[in-house]
């Protein structure tokens, strides 16, 4: 995948885990009285406030960097609009006027911040449609693709990873790790190309690209649904493959970390079957660090979506971004950049908060 700095598949699971910051809590031996409870609640509010304000600061940083990257050092937008053809100074001034580029930087930044908060994110250079409209049109398609891929990858990855870690040294484990490392090493877009050649061009099992067949729009609900599902198979599997590989490796490491723990021997000594020991005792413990690591990789999912949608011409935000790169359509790029970054920040914040409620070691006594 285009996993720029997604955690490389390192062996040790200790690389991530931001959720552990507040874990140094151990309750006293007093019963849960009123004082105790209100202290716990205050602690919880402080935690929530910390996470939310952290996300807000991150978001401001995103807005700031978006402004600087795209407005200040972002080359010459006039040329981007007018293309490479020579233009008269009058034409140039006219475009500058339209884009508000003749204002001082300070004013431009102020306008930018105002626009951001009024959700007035400007027009595309090319289609002169509102960029937000373009985005809202494409968003459901991206959600469909990434959602399918994520569910597929997370379910399968956690399951296989847990089994692999449980049987360390077995042929099964070695095979699964080998497969995962190979999948991780394959560029998403190339995987997509190969998949299309094999399954669409040669075997003719699935459509080459797009989300609907040509007559798609006029169909009734059920045929349309089947049509979209048919188109969804290849891109979703391609995108899932790389994410899957990461989840297998993460989950396997987490299980390995748990394996030495005595509570598993106790569970075995109680007479539980081996697979029950794994499912009921090892997996819930191993899932907690996995949740944190997976949350840290939300950004990588957008990387994957961008490349997958490009290869399969899946009409989502990733393809929109790709088309904007080719022009380059600065307002559109800017909005998409803010959207991608904002979504990951939001997702991470939510994951942090959810983690707190999942892990009894972090959570206050109820």
């Amino acid at each position, binding site marked *: *995948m*285009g*996993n*720029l*700095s*997604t*955690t*490389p*598949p*390192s*062996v*040790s699971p*200790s*690389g991530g885990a*931001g959720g552990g910051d507040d874990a140094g809590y151990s309750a006293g031996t007093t019963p849960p009285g009123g004082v105790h409870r209100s202290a716990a609640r205050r602690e919880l509010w402080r935690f929530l406030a910390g996470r939310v304000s952290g996300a807000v*600061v*991150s978001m401001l*940083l*995103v807005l700031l960097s978006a402004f600087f*990257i*795209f407005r200040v*050092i*972002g*080359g010459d937008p006039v040329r981007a609009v007018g293309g490479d053809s020579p233009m008269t100074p009058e034409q140039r001034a006219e475009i500058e006027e339209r884009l508000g580029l003749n204002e001082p930087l300070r004013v431009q930044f102020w306008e930018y911040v105002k626009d951001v908060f009024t959700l007035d994110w400007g027009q595309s250079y090319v289609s002169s449609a509102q960029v937000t409209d373009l985005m809202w049109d494409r968003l459901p398609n991206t959600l469909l693709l990434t959602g399918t891929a994520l569910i597929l990858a997370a379910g399968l990855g956690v399951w296989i990873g847990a089994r692999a870690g449980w049987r360390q*040294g077995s042929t099964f484990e070695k095979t699964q790790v080998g497969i995962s*490392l*190979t999948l991780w*090493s*394959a*560029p998403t*877009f*190339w995987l997509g*190309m*190969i998949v*299309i*050649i094999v399954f669409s*061009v*040669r075997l003719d099992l699935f459509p*080459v690209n797009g989300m609907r067949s040509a007559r798609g729009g006029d169909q009734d609900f059920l045929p349309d649904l089947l049509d979209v599902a048919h188109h969804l198979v290849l891109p979703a599997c391609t995108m899932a493959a790389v994410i899957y590989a990461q989840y297998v490796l993460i989950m396997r490491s987490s299980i*390995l970390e748990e394996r030495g723990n005595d509570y598993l021997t106790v569970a075995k000594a109680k007479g539980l079957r081996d697979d029950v020991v794994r499912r009921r005792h090892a997996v819930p413990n191993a899932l907690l660090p996995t949740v944190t690591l997976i949350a*840290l990789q*939300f*950004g990588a999912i*957008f*990387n994957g979506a*961008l*490349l997958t949608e490009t*290869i399969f011409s899946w009409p989502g935000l990733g393809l929109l*971004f790709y088309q904007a*790169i*080719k022009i*380059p359509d600065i307002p559109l*790029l800017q909005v*998409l*950049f803010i959207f*991608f*970054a904002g979504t*990951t*920040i939001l997702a*991470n914040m939510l994951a942090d908060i959810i983690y707190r409620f999942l892990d009894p070691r972090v959570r206050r006594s109820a």
Partner: protein
Amino acid sequence: MRTEPQPGSMSGSTNVTTELKSPRSIVWARRRASLADFWRLYRRQRAGMVGLAILVVITLLTVLAPWYTDESELNAANAPGGRMESPSTEFWFGTDQIGRPILTMVIWGARVSLQVGLVAAVLAVTLGTVIGMAAAHFGGWISWALMRLTDWFIVLPSLVLAIALVIALGPSKLTIIIAIALTSWAGTARLVRAQTMAIEGRPYLERARALGAGNWHQMTRHVLPNLMPLVLASATLQVSSAILAEASLSFLGLGDPSAFSWGGILERAFDAGAISAGAWWYMLPPGLAILLVVLAFTLCGRAMEVVLNPRLRGNQ
């Protein structure tokens, strides 16, 4: 704890110039010994040895390319074959849309891909190490600010950020390197910070501080040598991600238009309609090359991690 006053120990290095040689040579002997130790343990990692072998072969193929291939075939004017020819005995992996042999393109493409990958990884790891050490050493608000920044970079979709940077700076080899380095240092920084804090808690650093060692001395003489193995393992893994990143950026059309890289070849294949033409020979070699190199670096990095962290060796 009592320590014997040693001639030439770091605090007294100014007045004992003649004896400086011996402690330093002891240090070097110790480093050589630990390197030999590392190699002995590394050799037992079969996957790591496979990775290393792949890398050696690919490096040789890349370096020796001028002796067994003809670079001029890559010039559009001298293209020796026909349009998108399928594999034959003359062109093992066929030709592209203007008749250039794919195999030659892939062999020469290794130069750009490896170069960008290696340089970007070294830059990223250096940046990450410096920031991680600073965050661990100084504490207070500096540490807080650096860690927030690190978290910010870890969380953001790196490819999207890198694309934005390349667009802003204009596509070229250098911009790609900068964009990749800027978007991939954060993981290393976090790792280095944790490790530095562990090292700084050790008794000999307390001793060095008590003897009046400054920040710079503590960092370069005591912390950095202990971090080096971890940093190297991290750098090896980082090369994998950097090569993948370069491929992705080039594929999206943000590569250096004048150079061949594996991602760039795939971009041309995609744009030339190789998929619908079923020209698998156009796409298979560059993709496999990326996969092989990335896999090899990953295997090496993981093997190094296992050697450095006995807990991961399993079957204790």
